[in-house]
């Protein structure tokens, strides 16, 4: 009975998403990315890829910075991309638009979501995630339910 109620609730929430409402999504983070537009052309600035990616380092998540100008942001030992305010300022000197995207693996394959920089920093690749999202056609994560705040830290 409870399963039925949950199912119905999820169907209703998904229907509402298409109409502009919100839904609760859970899954595992497949990979993250930061993109931007420079000189009239859009490009991927960096990707945070999971442990099982064939280019990942030592079977751990890794960060592939595609733009050589920002290679210094991370080292090969960094597993999770955290973009600080200062980093974003540097990016904005080259890119006119910065977007943060999270690709979540669930029972529909991998679905993509826009996210704020602050939430992007809290979402870990290759780990479970649960959130509220709304908007169409590509939803934006509006509230992060899991993971919660870690160790009381204030994220940059």
């Amino acid at each position, binding site marked *: 009975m409870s*399963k039925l109620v949950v*199912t119905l609730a*999820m*169907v209703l929430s*998904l*229907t509402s*998403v*298409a*109409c502009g409402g919100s839904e609760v999504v*859970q*899954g*595992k983070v*497949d*990979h993250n*990315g930061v*993109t*931007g*537009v420079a000189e*009239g*052309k*859009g*490009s*991927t600035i960096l*990707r945070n890829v*999971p*442990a*099982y*990616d*064939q280019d990942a380092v*030592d*079977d*751990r998540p890794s960060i592939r910075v595609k733009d050589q100008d920002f290679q210094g942001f991370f080292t090969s030992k960094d597993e999770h991309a955290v973009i600080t305010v200062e980093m*974003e300022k540097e990016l*904005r000197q080259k890119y*006119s*638009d*910065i*977007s*943060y*995207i999270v*690709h979540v*693996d*669930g*029972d*529909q*394959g*991998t*679905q*993509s979501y*826009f*996210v*704020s*920089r*602050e939430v992007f920093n809290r979402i870990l690749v290759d780990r*479970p995630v649960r959130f509220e999202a709304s908007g*169409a*056609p*590509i*939803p*934006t994560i509006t509230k992060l339910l899991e993971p919660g705040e870690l160790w009381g830290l204030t994220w940059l």
Partner: protein
Amino acid sequence: MSVKERPGTKPPWAAGILIGLLVAAFVACSTEPQPTATPAPDTDQFDLPDVLIQFDYEPTFSTPERFAPFGRVPPFTLLEDGTLIYLDEGGRYDEQRVMEVRLSGDDVEALVQQVLDLGFERLENYSEQCQNLDDGTGMCLADASYTVLRVRLPSGEPRQVRIYANFGSDLQALESIRSTLREYSHPDARPYVPAKATLFIRPMAEAVDVTVLDWELGPAWLEADDKGRQRARVVDGDALATLLASVPRNVGDSFQHEGQAYHMTLVPWLPLVDFTAAVAAY
């Protein structure tokens, strides 16, 4: 000039940013219509004789194995004989299982009709990474997956649509069909027992927050290839039965052998498909 605005972005764009959108892997918004490539056909046909309904996806950025048909399980497949094989998400991501149930003729007919009523025939192929929005702005997205929906129409035509991200002409129909198939559950369904499956094994640096089982098939299965890559193998017969008996879920788990942890991904094959040659060439 209105611009879709998201946290962390600074509108508006210059109109010139649209140049090169077709090949660029990026996410952004624009106030101008997006260029289009050579139009894809509105729909395709599929060549899977026994399939009545199938919901599949194709990644554009993911692990290598998922690009291959033998590296992922379509979340929903209804066959002509009433066999339904679907992915049950469970309460959490790590409780996912592939389930199987046999539907009656009436139930099969009703399910096909439901998908049609939700607007399947209105859906068209959409392969661009960008889409114009109703408010005159545009949106682009990189690395998203394609949704692939296949339905055998009452006329017998095997119609397939392939849609990038959530784009296309009818988001309401797409979302309604996807959610209906995604949320499908049947009280009589049982875990699917495939005749064959693809087995991917990779060593783990450490097993964190997971239950690690003992590996029971022997060390030869755990060997990497000459390049140290994850190896794909076909598993069937007694070996598959042993695996399925030792794991709580039929899509894989974590194991250990002589102190080394491994993650095993099991990809059950649907009936009437044979990926043996493709796996051997992987």
